[in-house]
């Protein structure tokens, strides 16, 4: 039983990274209507920037806000400069652009910092807490708190601010939004910026546990995509819950379901998705889109 609980806790901890990345993916999907395959690489790049900032002597209290701002500007810049030209070329071209961004960002990271794994100290220290027989690391707790705060802030921005209203308007119906005088182009860039900032948090939380390398998010991206599908692309909350579910379920299934094992861990979330999509194509939390003929 103790191991079962510990496995669940581990699953939640890894799930947090998937959740944050899934949230970033869902944000871009709502705005641009495309999957950003490069989201994981953006997060990796951000983690390296955080690493560089902290080795330069910046305190972690400053690193986080600086990182969020830098990531926002980067994300918005990428949208304006590299995504905008293909905006009207259809979803497939957009998708391919993000695949190209994946390759490019990965190469840039490797060119600047090399391909070796680096150790990134945890911003939260190395302490360990015991609750009963369960073990919690400071990194897991701190990282969890950071991701939760990020999600709450993100949710609040979308729900309660005029900016959030405009973002949602553009996501829901770009044409009407444009008629209302909302600059859809600006909002798309902002959306990419917010997504990149959320992704940066994911990178920051993942790096101390996983080790900093250009491959930091390769696997996490896949699971985050699974999480986004599971939760439903149109739901921010769904992406977060999906991320946690994917983390916990793939942990438990690879441990307790005979024949799966660690090497087929990846199969688990996609098997779940397969079932979910057959029953609820819009995902667990998504809204069914009305068909416009």
């Amino acid at each position, binding site marked *: 039983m103790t191991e079962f609980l510990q496995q669940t806790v581990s699953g939640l901890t890894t799930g947090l990274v998937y959740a944050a990345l899934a949230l970033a993916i869902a944000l871009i*999907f709502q705005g641009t*209507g*495309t*999957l950003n*395959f490069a989201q994981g690489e953006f997060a990796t790049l951000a983690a390296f920037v955080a690493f560089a900032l902290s080795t330069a002597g910046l305190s972690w209290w400053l690193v986080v806000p600086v990182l969020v701002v830098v990531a926002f500007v980067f994300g918005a810049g990428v949208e304006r400069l*590299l995504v905008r*030209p*293909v905006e*009207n*070329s*259809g*979803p*497939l*071209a957009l*998708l*391919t*652009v993000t*695949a*190209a*961004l*994946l*390759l*490019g960002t*990965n*190469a*840039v990271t*490797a*060119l600047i910092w090399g391909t070796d794994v680096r150790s990134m100290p945890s911003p939260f220290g190395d302490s360990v807490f015991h609750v009963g027989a369960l073990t919690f690391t400071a990194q897991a707790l701190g990282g969890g708190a950071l991701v939760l705060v990020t999600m709450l802030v993100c949710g609040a921005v979308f729900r309660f601010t005029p900016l959030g209203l405009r973002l949602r308007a553009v996501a829901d119906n770009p044409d009407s939004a444009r008629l209302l005088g909302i600059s859809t182009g600006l909002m798309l860039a902002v959306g990419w910026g917010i997504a990149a900032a959320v992704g940066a948090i994911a990178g920051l939380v993942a790096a101390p546990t996983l080790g900093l390398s250009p491959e930091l998010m390769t696997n996490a991206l*896949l699971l985050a*995509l*699974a999480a*986004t*599908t599971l939760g439903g*692309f149109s739901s921010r909350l769904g992406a977060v819950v999906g991320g946690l579910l994917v983390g916990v379920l793939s942990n438990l299934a690879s441990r307790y379901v005979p024949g799966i094992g660690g*090497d*087929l861990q*990846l*199969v688990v979330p*996609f098997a779940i*998705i*397969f079932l979910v*999509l*057959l029953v609820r*194509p819009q995902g667990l939390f998504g809204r069914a*889109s009305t*068909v*416009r*003929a």
Partner: protein
Amino acid sequence: MATSISEPAGAVPATQAAPGAASALTTPGRVVHRPIWRRPVTWAWTALFVVGLLLPFLISDYDLFKATRVLTIAIAVAGLNLLIGRAGQISAGHGALYGLGAYTAMILVKELDWAWPLAVLAAVAVSGVAGWLIGLPALRVRGLNLGLLTIAIAAVFPLLLNRFSGLTGGTVGLQLAGSPITPPESWGLTPEQFQFLLLVLVVTVVLVVLRNLSTGPLGRSIEALRVNPLMARSEGVDVNRLTLTVFGISSAVAGLGGALGGLVLASTVPDSYSMFFSLTLLSACVVGGSRTWAGALLGAAFIVYLPDLISQQIGSTTGGQWSQLVYAAALLLTLFFLPSGVAGGIGRLLARSTRRPERT
């Protein structure tokens, strides 16, 4: 239509003039009653075919081997073109189907001593059935959700190959001492020449069949499926059956490419069919132009030749990352300037220069 993967109207110049549902049922640029000597496109393809037949006697075996690889990949991309460009369904998992074809053919030839043509046919059948099964969720899910499901298949396929190592040879895969596709000795051809000629013939057959399919009655239903599934249904098209059929055909074609590719290489290893390969096929489809059949050839050439060309220009132990960066940049620039692919783009450029030179 928010999440449907359909190319924008005008991806092919001929549809530019009259996009919309009405034109969907009339195939663009279809010419029925024109004598054969007045069909430039037929002439061009015929010329290309003849060049393909002459090429083995002009260039080195090494270049032929590489060109053969382009052609095997072009087959798979042509299958994707049918699925994406014509039917508007996305698959990010065609690399796995290509791999399935390769492994099926390889296992049959290596373990069961089948003759290679039979093994290739069996591989086509297996991939087709697998594609039909993959198409099942496409009945419920469209657009990017479907893309995600298929990318999952691409991600899981190499893991399964490793898991069932008894059948697949695990990490080191399956190898033959040499390619079984060899010419009869009396022909006096090298294996590379023979393989290239074979592939020229196969690609020709595949392209002709796919083209006829997409201009025939089935093609019009497929076009309707892409433009508006609801309307297609109201016109009496069995949308579910059609979707599965298209998935099956497209996958069988990809498996054909994979089977020939695997047998020419005489080797299959799981690392060949990673998720990355599936995405590369997808980018070949987009870069070439998903709605033109020439795009399949151009896209395949793009993804095979460009990385090599770049790394030969840069070529040092630290140059690998630079080549990856340059490749990404080339991909981006192609999409910026030729959003409907190289083949579509060339057509459009010509349209601009011949019809309305002053148009901006």
